[in-house]
């Protein structure tokens, strides 16, 4: 376990973008919050905070800003994770450091699993924590600069529920996206160069090939569902409670396609481990 923790830390040492990119976005957002808050009562908003409608305005503004920020943050995370997975078993071959890593008593299984854990759980947990802290800080910034009543914000219960779901989602979505990440590992451990191209090319070729020769989009649909299918009840209700339920991914655990994906991921991870056992600096 101590060794596994170190392998995970090692990934964050090498791939500093994993932390640097999301932290930068959070800092930018907080600066924007401070600017927006400090300038809220001038210009087109003309806010004086007396009427109910005007009370609602900063709250709505706060919520929308945070929603946009959170979506951006998770989109950034997806991008960072994509490039991380491209690089994670390729860089060590490119710079020959694989000879150093393999000179230590760490099995290929441990190594490959550590990379999978970083991409599917480590990075999402970091981003979850960052989002939590940033949302809280932006709340404080708004309270100080715009002076709107905390009671008008989301209730404590809803807030807890929302963040509980988001935390659970990290683990559920780790299983949901495991086949994608495992596929990327195979490409990363295997191809001699241009990993990102080799990651994207085969699925695009297969999808277009199916369309041209069989006039069907069914594989494309499968991929689309994997990327969009987890937002099961999105837009399912008007009330805050319904909106919060929409981000709950736990029901995915009852779906067969999640577990089929996990099984495929297991096979791909095994293939990755076998290939890394053969890999050296050539």
């Amino acid at each position, binding site marked *: 376990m101590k060794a596994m923790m170190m*392998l995970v830390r090692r990934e964050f040492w*090498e791939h500093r973008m994993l932390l640097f990119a999301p932290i930068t976005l959070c800092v930018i957002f907080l600066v924007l919050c401070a600017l927006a808050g400090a300038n809220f009562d001038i210009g087109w908003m003309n806010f004086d905070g007396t009427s109910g409608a005007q009370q609602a305005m900063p709250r709505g503004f706060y919520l929308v800003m945070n929603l946009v920020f959170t979506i951006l943050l998770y989109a950034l995370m997806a991008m960072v994770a994509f490039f991380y997975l491209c690089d994670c078993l390729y860089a060590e071959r490119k710079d020959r450091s694989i000879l150093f890593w393999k000179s*230590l008593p760490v099995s290929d299984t441990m190594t490959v699993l550590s990379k999978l854990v970083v991409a599917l759980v480590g990075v999402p947990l970091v981003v979850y924590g960052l989002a939590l802290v940033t949302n809280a800080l932006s709340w404080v910034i708004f309270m100080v600069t715009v002076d709107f009543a905390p009671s008008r914000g989301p209730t404590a219960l809803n807030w807890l529920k929302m963040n509980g779901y988001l935390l659970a989602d990290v683990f559920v979505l780790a299983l949901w996206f495991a086949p994608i990440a495992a596929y990327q590992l195979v490409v990363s451990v295997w191809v001699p160069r241009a990993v990102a191209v080799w990651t994207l090319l085969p699925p695009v070729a297969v999808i277009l090939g199916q369309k041209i020769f069989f006039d069907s989009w069914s594989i494309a649909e499968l991929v689309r569902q994997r990327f969009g299918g987890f937002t099961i009840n999105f837009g399912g209700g008007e009330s805050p409670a319904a909106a919060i339920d929409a981000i709950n991914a736990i029901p995915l655990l009852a779906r067969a396609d999640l577990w089929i994906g996990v099984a495929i991921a297991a096979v791909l991870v095994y293939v990755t481990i076998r290939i890394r*056992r053969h890999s050296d600096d050539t």
Partner: protein
Amino acid sequence: MTTIIEARGLTKSFGSTRALDGVSFSVEAGRIVGLIGPNGAGKTTALKSILGLTSFQGDLQVLGRNPYTDRDALMREVCFIADVAVLPKWLRVSQALDYVQAVHPRFERERAEEFLRKTDIRMKSRVRELSKGMVTQLHLALILAIDARLLVLDEPTLGLDLLFRRQFYDTLLNDYYDKERTILLTTHQVEEIEHLLTDVIFINHGRVALDSSVEGLATRYAQVNVKADQATRAREMKPFYEREIFGRVAMFYEGRTPEELVPLGEVRTPSIADLFVAKMQGVPA
């Protein structure tokens, strides 16, 4: 005597070329073995097989294990330096220590730190900021702190200046080597290591061309700096190699007694470097 490495009919093909062609040798505990051969002879392939970095045919046991299927367990007792390029550029010195400490049960951090204090290497530096010589020192510091039974060095001093090379081997002999530990190394700079070797294995075209202890070489091989008037007689004694240096002819013999050779000229034990050249050029490929 404990056998550390036992190879029987070790074979490895890349396509139609055989990098190793039925190589057999064994390495006993406490020896310092030089694996010497020209480029493309199969040295690196042999080392990679021993380290579990590549699959192979034939029988190979390192510390009683199959290195390919048992690499991670084996690496608890085997250390390996390939050449200076291998430590990743982004790694900090302190991170290297943290990492090895966490994954290696036989790593003694204090020893590595003590060695590093004697160098100009700072804990916060990244590998990319260090000179080639310092990277090797760092790697050596990690290795010295690991209580291993077998150390494998593949061209460890490639691209280093003379001072660093000398210091590297001095440290290895003084601070690392003891009668329990075994070292297997390859290098092109044979002259520099021949005084520290106890055994040599020459390898050429994927086969073992010579396998002997250094004491054994002295009894088996002789170099005669032949007197000018003895050249014809000396050739009749069938040297396996001859070489002209500044007008004098040196001939190399295998299995001749000193009594036979003394009349021909000055008899001496050939250096490993000379013997290597003689063996590689004398034997038709």
